[in-house]
């Protein structure tokens, strides 16, 4: 077996620095993992298409029917939010992708290789969450800007458009990227907590989509006080420019949503360190 010795000696002079774990290197590894799965690329592409395509399509629809709309329909029309409506669909793709960051590794057994290489474990969670957050924020914010510009172009046919200099508009456009990023982080945390793709996805969308429906059925003097604090309602208040008085203020709502995600990530960290892989 001369090859073994050859290979062994090769490392000793081919390594520029001594091999060693660092947080930056673990981040790089997680970036490689993210970009080397075809499913990730397709899902991200789908999310971009949802935000851009749906935003422009719905803006076009509103504009082309504007002249037939009653004053009641027109009341509270939010041109920014209309052009960002694809966000509500894109959250499905981003959420699933977030859950898969960990659950995909548990399902395939990859997690054993990952935690074998990084036995302290927490750096993996920080790296996964960080890489996922940056990628999602950059892509989704760009998509939101494109959707906004495309959507306003559609709405300008009826002169009902807005622009980025209007108060709250820029916040809402960037807010769409921020909202989707936090949805992804919640997914990452739930994937690490539950270790199951199905369980993680069900829990995530149970919280984001089903919980508001259930609260809606409560007696209205209860639901009135609860609704605005629900994760998705709080988070989505940043995407609205024309404000529903019962909703939270844009940044207050967003930071509450972020707070929920931080709690989920902290719980994931605790479980990741404590439980056997």
């Amino acid at each position, binding site marked *: 077996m001369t090859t073994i010795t050859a290979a062994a000696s*090769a490392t000793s002079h081919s390594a520029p620095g001594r091999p060693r774990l660092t947080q930056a*290197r673990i981040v790089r590894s997680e970036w490689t993992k993210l970009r080397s799965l075809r499913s990730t690329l397709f899902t991200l592409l789908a999310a971009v298409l949802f935000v851009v395509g749906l935003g422009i399509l719905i803006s076009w629809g509103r504009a082309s029917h504007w002249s037939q709309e009653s004053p009641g329909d027109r009341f509270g029309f939010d041109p920014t939010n209309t052009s960002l409506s694809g966000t509500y669909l894109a959250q499905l793709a981003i959420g699933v992708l977030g859950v898969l960051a960990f659950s995909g590794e548990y399902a395939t057994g990859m997690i*054993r290789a990952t935690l074998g290489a990084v036995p302290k474990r927490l750096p993996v969670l920080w790296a996964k969450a960080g890489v996922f957050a940056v990628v999602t924020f950059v892509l989704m914010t760009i998509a939101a800007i494109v959707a906004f510009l495309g959507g306003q172009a559609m709405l300008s046919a009826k002169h009902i458009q807005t622009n980025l200099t209007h108060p709250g508009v820029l916040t809402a456009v960037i807010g769409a990227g921020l909202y989707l990023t936090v949805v992804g982080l919640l997914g990452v945390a739930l994937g690490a907590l539950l270790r199951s793709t199905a369980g993680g996805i069900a829990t995530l969308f149970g919280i984001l989509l089903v919980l508001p429906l259930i609260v809606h059925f409560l007696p209205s003097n209860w639901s009135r006080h609860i609704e605005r604090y629900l994760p998705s309602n709080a988070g989505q208040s940043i995407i609205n420019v024309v404000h529903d008085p019962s909703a939270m203020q844009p940044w207050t709502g967003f930071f509450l949503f972020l707070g929920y995600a931080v709690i989920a990530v902290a719980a994931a960290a605790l479980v990741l360190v404590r439980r056997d892989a």
Partner: protein
Amino acid sequence: MIEVRGLTKRYGEKIAVSDLSFTVQPGIVTGFLGPNGSGKSTTMRMIIGLDRPTAGSVTVDGRRYRDFAAPLTEVGALLEARAVHTGRSAFNHLLALAQTHGIPRRRVDEVIDLVGLAEVARKRAGGFSLGMGQRLGIASALLADPSTFILDEPVNGLDPEGIRWIRNLLKALAAEGRTVFVSSHLMSEMALTAEHLIVIGRGRLIADTSVEEFVRRASGTVVRVRTPQASKLRDLLISADVTVTSVVSDTLEVTGLPSERIGEAAAGAGVTLYELTPQQASLEEAFMDLTRDAVEFHGAASAGAAAALEGQV
């Protein structure tokens, strides 16, 4: 060197590993032997910190695995269940592992060539055969050129050529002074590869011995004698330390006497012998003997057969 001290792992009510202590020395291949479900995989997972011991400790070269600054350069592990994302190519899988430690990309290509996966390295690992999966696992173990190797059932799913390749690889790694710890449930495989054996059953240590010693102990003291005067010879030989059983009417199996003494006794009494053969108990049988009480799941058929045999004797 791997040092296991009082290692215990409990999953709820079930004890997987119980107060296990042994040392794995560098420079030789050490086999880790035990029936399925005896705690081998659990022990190996605890060595690299995937499972947390309920009690006791395990160190590699004097330190806990999680305390190493570059764990992959200390221990290369191949665990039984596949540890590869099925959607990722072999190259990207190894690259992602290498990047955590800043190991250069060139080394990834080197280990891919070394295990013979160059042609499929860019294909999704989900399509790999069991043997290719094992080779990929071995590539990841070799990646950081570690001083200790832990391999759980590495020959599973390999063809004869692959099995021989692993055998030679392990011996070569040990010859370079590395610690090589390999589990198997097949004694015959270990006899060809290992110099030292750690045998466990139901999570407890059964034997910690050199293969040579194990073979010596195993190769029986049973001598097969064929003679037309079987009953006369039996009366002649039988004593407190010697047992004689009869398989066929003219054949005896003598335990507790070397063949020379049986021959002399027969000559002295004028008994004719047709055959006088010391029986080599196979390693597999010795292993079965050793672990019989420790096997988790007895096949119903074999248990029945054993009972039937006992009835005959």
